[in-house]
């Protein structure tokens, strides 16, 4: 550690988007050689705040000090010049270019022509920080963690000494996360200031020196990590005490619902994304599906819902094969299968229609005559608003104006209302804050107790271990294991996700 100077100091930062106040009176500081965790629920303004440091947004008022000097950051260029490197949650990489091209992109260096010696400098940086990268590989052929490595090298290449990471671990396996943390610790030793945004509390406790908590756009507290606990952090984040455990009701149905035999599915471009997998789903069971992003989860869901054609294999529902049937035919057979897609406003709901019209999407062809009746749908919407505490100005407000948690409740409510036997949910709590997440877990558990078979595609392994009965791990479109959630650890799941037998890199 060089000295105790503040690498970054933010004072009374305020930023508004139209009438929405995203950040208000925010104070934050990071020393050199320190890792600060920025914690807050979704919509609490973490990313907005960091985007002001990286020059994407300009603050309306307030001041930014870097290494003790007051600065104005008007563009990403300014920010890079000041030594700030940001690794965005959605990577800012050019897919069609190679790793090396992405790394040197925009770097202010001499010479009109690209010099091929750049890969040496990249190699040197990789070695110093213990990173591994094939600098000629194209980004679109890379796995998520490889892309992240490229982003990190890109920042190091510009000699940034202030590093901001926006939810870097959301897409990583536990092993990859561990490696990332080692890299961050090494950067800390080199005197870099690091800000890490995450809402995984155990990671905050593991990696950070101090934690700054944001709530509703304001900085509510900054605490030393050593003297705090997950419980305290949650309370600061939410503003009141929260129960942090997920129910796990036992059910006693002995009935098999779905049997999948040797299923092979190709995506729209003809790549085999699901390769010869077999599993079954029972009544009253939550079967978790874990895997690195892009391991075939999306294709599995869409094949089960009848949206993607099946290349080989069978999907048996009470011994009846569903392969080759359209979604409408599957519904007509009296099988009620509900699919909650990951892209809620794209595939799940019509974003610019209100709740009423979205309810009708599933039932419009049940009525008689050429006209639809909105009466039943309106009543249903009103009931859901009451039952699920959906916050919306009215049942006719376009659903895209609702917050993520409320959108998910609308979708889940509609699907549950059709009393399905099988419920497929993909990333049900993605982008939801802690409170909404627990509401969703409760709803899913309620369905489980009713005897519904639930396929739960998830990303947070801690949650899956608590919520699911069994967990199936996908890697490269193959099943690498189906385990009882009670008898397995996060690390074991992580190994299955990357498939220790190692059959080439996964595509994303």
């Amino acid at each position: 550690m060089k000295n105790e100077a503040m690498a970054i100091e933010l004072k009374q930062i305020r930023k508004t988007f139209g009438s929405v106040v995203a950040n208000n009176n925010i104070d934050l500081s990071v020393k050199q050689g320190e890792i600060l965790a920025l914690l807050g629920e979704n919509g609490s303004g973490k990313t907005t705040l960091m985007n002001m440091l990286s020059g994407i947004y300009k603050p309306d008022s307030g001041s930014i000090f870097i290494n003790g000097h007051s600065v104005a950051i008007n563009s990403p260029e300014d920010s890079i010049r000041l030594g700030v490197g940001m690794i965005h949650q959605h990577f800012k990489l050019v897919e069609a270019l190679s790793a090396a091209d992405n790394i040197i992109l925009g770097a202010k260096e001499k010479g009109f022509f690209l010099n091929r010696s750049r890969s040496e400098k990249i190699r040197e940086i990789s070695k110093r920080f213990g990173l591994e990268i094939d600098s000629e590989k194209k980004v679109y052929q890379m796995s998520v963690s490889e892309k992240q490595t490229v982003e990190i090298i890109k920042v190091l290449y510009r000699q940034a000494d202030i590093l901001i990471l926006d939810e870097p671990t959301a897409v990583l396996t536990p092993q990859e996360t561990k490696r990332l943390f080692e890299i961050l610790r090494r950067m800390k030793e080199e005197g870099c200031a690091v800000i890490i945004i995450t809402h995984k509390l155990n990671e905050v406790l593991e990696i950070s020196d101090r934690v700054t908590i944001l709530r509703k756009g304001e900085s509510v507290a900054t605490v030393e990590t050593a003297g705090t606990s997950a419980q305290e952090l949650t309370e600061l984040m939410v503003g009141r005490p929260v129960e942090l455990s997920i129910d796990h009701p036992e059910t006693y149905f002995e009935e098999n619902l779905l049997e999948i035999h040797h299923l092979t599915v190709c995506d729209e471009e003809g790549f085999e994304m699901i390769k010869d997998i077999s599993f079954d789903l029972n009544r009253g069971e939550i079967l978790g599906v874990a895997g690195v992003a892009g391991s075939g989860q999306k294709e599995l869901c869409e094949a089960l819902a009848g949206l993607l054609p099946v290349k080989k294999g069978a999907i048996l529902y009470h011994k009846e094969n569903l392969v080759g049937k359209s979604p409408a035919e599957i519904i007509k057979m009296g099988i009620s299968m509900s699919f909650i897609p990951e892209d809620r406003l794209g595939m799940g709901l019509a974003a610019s229609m209100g709740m009423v019209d979205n309810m009708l999407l599933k039932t419009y062809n049940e009525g008689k005559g050429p006209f639809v009746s909105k009466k039943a749908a309106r009543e249903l919407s009103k009931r859901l608003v009451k039952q699920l505490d959906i916050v919306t100005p009215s049942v006719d407000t376009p659903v895209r104006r609702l917050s993520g948690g409320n959108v998910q409740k609308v979708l889940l409510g509609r699907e549950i209302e059709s009393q399905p036997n099988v419920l497929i949910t993909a990333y049900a709590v993605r982008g939801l804050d802690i409170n909404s997440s627990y509401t969703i877990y409760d709803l899913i558990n309620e369905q489980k107790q009713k005897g519904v078979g639930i396929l739960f595609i998830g990303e947070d392994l801690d949650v899956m271990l608590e919520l699911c009965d069994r967990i199936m791990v996908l890697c490269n479109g193959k099943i690498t294991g189906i385990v009882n959630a009670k008898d397995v650890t996060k690390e074991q799941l992580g190994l299955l996700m990357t498939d220790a037998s190692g059959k080439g890199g996964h595509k994303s």
Partner: protein
Amino acid sequence: MIINFLFAAIKAGTPLLFGTTGEIMTQKTGNLNLGVEGMMFMGAFMSFFVAYHSDSLVLALLAAFAIGVFAALIYAVLTVSFMANQNVTGLTLTIFGTGFAKFFGAMMIDEAGGSPKLSGKFLKAVSEKAIPVLGDIPVVGKLLFSHNPLVYLAVAIAILCTLYLLKTRSGLNMRAVGENPGAADAAGINVTLTKYLHILVGGGICGLGGAYLSLINGGGIWNNSSVVNGQGWISVALVIFASWNPAKAIIGSLVFGAFSVLQFYVPKNIIEVPNAFYVMLPFLITTFVLIITSMRKSKEGSQPAGCGVNYFREER
């Protein structure tokens, strides 16, 4: 005969090469400019007008480039600064450019009291000349080294643009802007400046294509109705055929040039097809090319991912 045919194909393909190279420069920076036809039309008029009054080839070419830059500037201001829809803006530019050239073309005809004609001195400057020594090589000399100066200019521009795109730092930055402006912006590249610069240069090159049509193909006489005649549109399609690589556009424009002159080289006594068929041929081939290339699925050699979408940094 074959040599004559290929020679004519090169000649007919050159304006397409200008148009295609210009449009590649525009698309590589993330903007689809459908105004090529209009920019060529404006270049065609402007160069003819200047050539008519000054008898200078250099001035005529500069004028064509400048008016192309001007037309592209209109497009760039609307799409890059004001975020107007790129397709609509480009189409409008085509309509505007065509109208512009025809309006002033008609004025020029009125002024001259009949179709204006370029001077013999000027026509000599743009005529086909064999390069000493090289031009004397049998076959190759005629095919490659006996053209009018604009042919060499077109090929040189295409090769320079290829080198620029692949080998230079600013070429890399520009490709990044075209693929993912958000990533380029975060990397500290000035997206707006990059876009403006390349859209303007691209427009200028398209203008030169127009100059070729009015100065060379027109035979020195201004014809108000059929100067450009769809060549701009073929250029846009050729961009796809060339998979966004100006060097490949050299081949592509040659192939299309060949189709457009085919009718004069097919022996009439052997194959009898109405002339209209030949006139239609390049457009028919364009259609097929578009169908076949759209089935291609590789990431490299396909349209820049950010092409056609305007970029606004603070968009959420």
